[in-house]
Every structure is written in C-alpha cells, then in structure tokens.
C-alpha cells in the first residue's frame, strides 16, 4: 500500500472581484509514494508545492480529485495520528516555552499522559534543544524555531512525515543537522515527503523526486534514472599546461588550471581525446565521468521547449 497517493488532485482559485477568472494552482496530480521512501517534491517558488501539502493536510479542500494517506481519507483522525507536518516558516505560540508547546501538541496528538514528558524530553534532545526547553519561544532564533518545528512533527512517532522547505533560512550547520535528522528518520523506516527548491539537498537525500512547475507535474522518478537520461560526459585532466588544438575541436569546455588542464568531452569522443593527448606527449592525470546533475534535469524540465514537446 502506498504511503501517499493522489488521484487527480486539483486546486483552482477564482481571482478578481468583478470578473472572476480561474487561476489554477495545481493541475490534476497523480502521485504515489511508497512506505519508507524519502521523496523530494521539487519546484521553483510558486510552483504549487505548498498548495499540494496543504491539500494533503486537509487545510484546503481540492476542487477536484482526492488523496489518500496510508490507504485512508486525508481527514480521517486515525490518519492524522500517524502523520507529522512541518509548515514553511513555521510560527508557534510564542508565549509558550518549547517544552510546553511540545507537551500541548503531544496531548493533541493523543500521546498518553505518562509517555508524554518522556517523549518530549527525548525529542528535544534529538533536535538539540534540551538546554532551551524552558525558554519562551518568542526568544528563539529562526534556526531554533525550525528545530522546534521538526520536533513537533516527529514527537508522536508518526509513520509519514511531511516537511515544507525544511532547510529554509538555516545556516550550513543547521542544514547539515536537518539532513542528518532526515537520514535518521529514513533509517527508522518512516516515509519522508519534503518539498524544496534546493536541489543539492534533494540529491543527497532522496530516493525519488518529482518536479513541479506552474502547478503541473513535469517529471517523476529515481534520481539516478533521471540524471542518466541526460547525455553523459567525461572530464579529462592532464599535465602540461597546454591544450592541443585537437582537444579544442572536440570540446568547447577546456581550460588551464595552473600546471594542469581540463576538458569535458562527450563519452563517445573519449578515445579520440586520449589519442590527441598521447600524440602531444601530455601526461594523463584523470578520466572521470561527469554525471548530469539534478540541476540539469530540473532546468530542462522547466524549459518552455519541454512544455512545447508535451
């Protein structure tokens, strides 16, 4: 049973006061995320990522279609006990301390009275906020609030965790910590569905990704498969500080790096390049396949040409 499934999930707004025009925030979306997956939901700002998450959380109602989480309707309270949600740029009751907030949330999530303080302490430790547990949230920095957000999303040990831009506003250390946390969630067998527009994070963490643009799903699949479909290149580095003209002809990208030189050629031209270097008596240092990055895939999926091809 997929952890998350959408069937033609759609959201259209009518904007305008006098002449109502429809604005489509999300075109019919069909998606399935398996249990235990870490799924990246990518797209530029305004693509509809947050809209999708809100629909899945039951905060908004779709204009068409439906979704299921763990095989049940999204608004089913039994489902809600099994999911955690971190909204984008979260804001919490600032008059509460971290511990009070988490205990309140634990109560609402149905965590029994006896287990409550234990769980809260454990999760505070896990996100590294144990020392500020008694401090009012209004004194927290952005990074600390983000960690509180993650804490409240996982404190009731949910099976599926939804994170909207979990790295936003964090410094590199913070981001590393969140990444590690997400890794550990995966190891616990949880399903993690997170949206982001930072591709390097997605590359590092995800099993599968989907790319969303202007409300439309542009691509979905395992990262390795997606990136391999982009034509592979090979990077060649040699000593000598000289670029033979033959290499120039083979590759538009070549330059000198101190005493060495570098060129990027297509896979099928590798032999020709190595030959050219041998003829010039230049010493080969390394030959490395350059995989297309997710970014290439991303940019390609967003391009108007892609739209025209559809």
């Amino acid at each position, binding site marked *: 049973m997929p952890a998350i499934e959408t069937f033609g999930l759609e959201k259209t707004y009518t904007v305008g006061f006098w002449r109502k025009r429809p604005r489509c925030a999300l075109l019919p979306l069909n998606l399935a995320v398996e249990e235990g997956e870490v799924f990246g939901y990518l797209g530029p700002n305004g693509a509809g990522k947050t809209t999708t998450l809100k*629909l899945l959380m*039951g905060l908004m*109602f*779709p204009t068409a279609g*439906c*979704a299921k989480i763990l095989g049940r*309707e*999204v*608004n089913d309270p039994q489902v809600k006990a099994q999911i955690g949600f971190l909204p984008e740029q979260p804001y919490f009751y600032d008059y509460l301390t971290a511990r009070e907030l988490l205990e309140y949330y634990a109560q609402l999530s149905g965590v029994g009275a006896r287990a409550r303080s234990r769980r809260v302490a454990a999760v505070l430790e896990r996100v590294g906020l144990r020392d500020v547990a008694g401090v009012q949230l209004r004194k927290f920095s952005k990074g600390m609030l983000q960690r509180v957000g993650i804490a409240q999303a996982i404190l009731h040990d949910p099976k599926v965790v939804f994170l909207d831009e979990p790295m936003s506003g964090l410094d590199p250390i913070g981001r590393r910590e969140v990444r590690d946390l997400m890794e550990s969630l995966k190891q616990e067998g949880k399903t993690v569905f997170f949206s982001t527009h930072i591709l390097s994070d997605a590359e590092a963490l995800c099993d599968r990704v989907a790319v969303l643009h202007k409300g439309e799903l542009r691509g979905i699949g395992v990262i390795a498969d997606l990136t391999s479909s982009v034509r592979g290149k090979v990077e060649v580095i040699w000593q000598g500080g000289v670029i033979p003209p033959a290499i120039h002809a083979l590759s538009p990208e070549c330059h000198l790096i101190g005493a060495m030189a570098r060129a990027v050629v297509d896979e099928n031209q590798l032999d020709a390049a190595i030959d050219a270097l041998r003829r010039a008596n230049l010493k080969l240092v390394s030959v490395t396949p350059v995989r297309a990055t997710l970014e290439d895939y991303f940019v390609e999926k967003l391009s108007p040409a892609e739209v025209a091809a559809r």
Partner: protein
Amino acid sequence: MRPSRHTTAILAAILVVCLAAAVFSITLADRARPSSTLEEMLYIPSPSVLRRMSLGYTGLLADIYWTRAVQYFGGKHVLASHEYKLLAPLLDITTQLDPHLTVAYQFGAIFLTQPPPNGAGDPDAAIKLVKFGIRENPDNWHLYYNLGFIYYLEKKDYVAAAQAFEQGSKVPHAHPFLKLLAARMAERGGDLETARMLWTMTYDDSRDKDIKANAISHLRALQVDEAVPRLEQLIRQYFERTGHYPGNWAELVRAGYVPGIPLDPAGHPYKLAPEGKVWVAVPDALPFITQGLPPGVKASEMPRL
C-alpha cells in the same frame, strides 16, 4: 476530502434549532419579567444625567425615548389603565434631549391632560411641558395652540386659553384661525361649536395617528352631544302636539319631524327611551359623550384609539 456533509448537516440543524429555541425562551422571559422592572428599564431619574451620558447623540436617544413614551402610553391604554405615572417623565426626558421634537409636546398636551383611561389626567404637567416647548421654540405657533388647548380642555380656564391663542396668533406665519379662536374663547368658551373648531384644528394640525384618532373620537362625541338634545326637543314638540311620546321613529318620520331614522356617528340608530329621552344604542362605541347616556352608565371607559 471535502468537509464532511454529515458534520455540516448536524451543525446547521443545531444552529437553527438553538436559535428558534432561544427566541422562544426570550419571549418566556419577557412575560416573566414583572412590569415594574420593565418600567425601571425605561426610566432614568435625571434628564441632565442622561444627556451627559448620551455622549452627544442626544437626537437618537430622544427618538428612543419618544418611541418608549408612545409605546408606554399605547400599551397601557389598550389595557384601559388608570395610571400613567411614567408618561410625564418620559416626555420630559424626550424634550430635554431634543427640545425641537414638536410632536412630543403635542402628544403631551393631549394625553397628559385627558383623564384616565384616555390620558394621565395631569394637566399641570402638560402645561409645564408645553411652556418649556414654547421657551425652546418661540417661533412655533403650534405650541401656543397646544397650550391654549390644555387650558380649554380640562382646566376649563377659557381666559388663559384665550391668552395663549392670542399670543400664538402674533407669531409670524401663524394660522389665522388662532385669532378667531382667541376671540371665541373669550366670549363663548363653553360652546359646542368652539369645541368642534378646536378638535377639527387639532385633527388638521397633527400628523400623529394617535392624536388624529383621538380628535375624531371627540368630534363624534360632539355630534352626539348636539344631536341628542335636538332630537329630544323634537320629541317634546311631538308630545305637546299629540299628548303622548312616540313609540318608534317611524311615527316621527310620518309626522314629518325627522326625515328618517336618525343614526349616531357609530352607525347605530338612536334609541327612544322612556319619558321622551334619547339614548345611544352602544355607549361603549362613543367615548367622551356627555348626552344620550342611559342612567347609571358613565361616559365610555373603553378607549377607541
């Protein structure tokens, strides 16, 4: 994934049922409240305090108190009450808040003066009210008329009434009738014709439906007060000629004394009573009459507003 239809239906049902039940409860509460507490609500001892409390919105508050005065009077009148204790204070408050609310003076002039159950029976309070009105609105001839009316109606002080009408006639654009009334009042205050002129004037001058209806009642009473003695005189003439009183109106018609069966203003035929008297058939239908009442029957207590 939509909001559950089940929940929506239950909530909507709760809303409607609770609202209906709430309205029902408040009607029960209204009945349970003793009327004295109701009056307490209406009343604040000092108009000047009220004026200060109204934060400048005196006009609106005056309207509210005016409505309360009308309702208070109307509510009690329907029950043929003999007590209208709060009418004068309510009108006082109204006019203190808005001295230019002329209809309040008119209302007071009539319904404070008339004896219960058709009024509070307090002509002095009425005089005080209207004099205040005159002070605040010296160019309003209607108020002089109202004042004269009070002196005429219950106090029967025709001299003072004449004076009031006289003063009123001096106001620019005053109704020419006032001068006429002043003269009449001085000479023939007690006349039926004078009364008719006054009540007709009241009827014409006012736009308030209670005042108009009251004026009509009085005019009808005047008709009766005029008709009954006239009919009794005709009957006496018949008696002198024939030696006996007529058994029915047909006899008088045949004898040429009356053109047809005479009807009172309420539409009922007059009754021929023993000893040549004429009575009205349904005294209750004609308040304020002083003639044509069967013995033992007082002037109508039933209000006919």
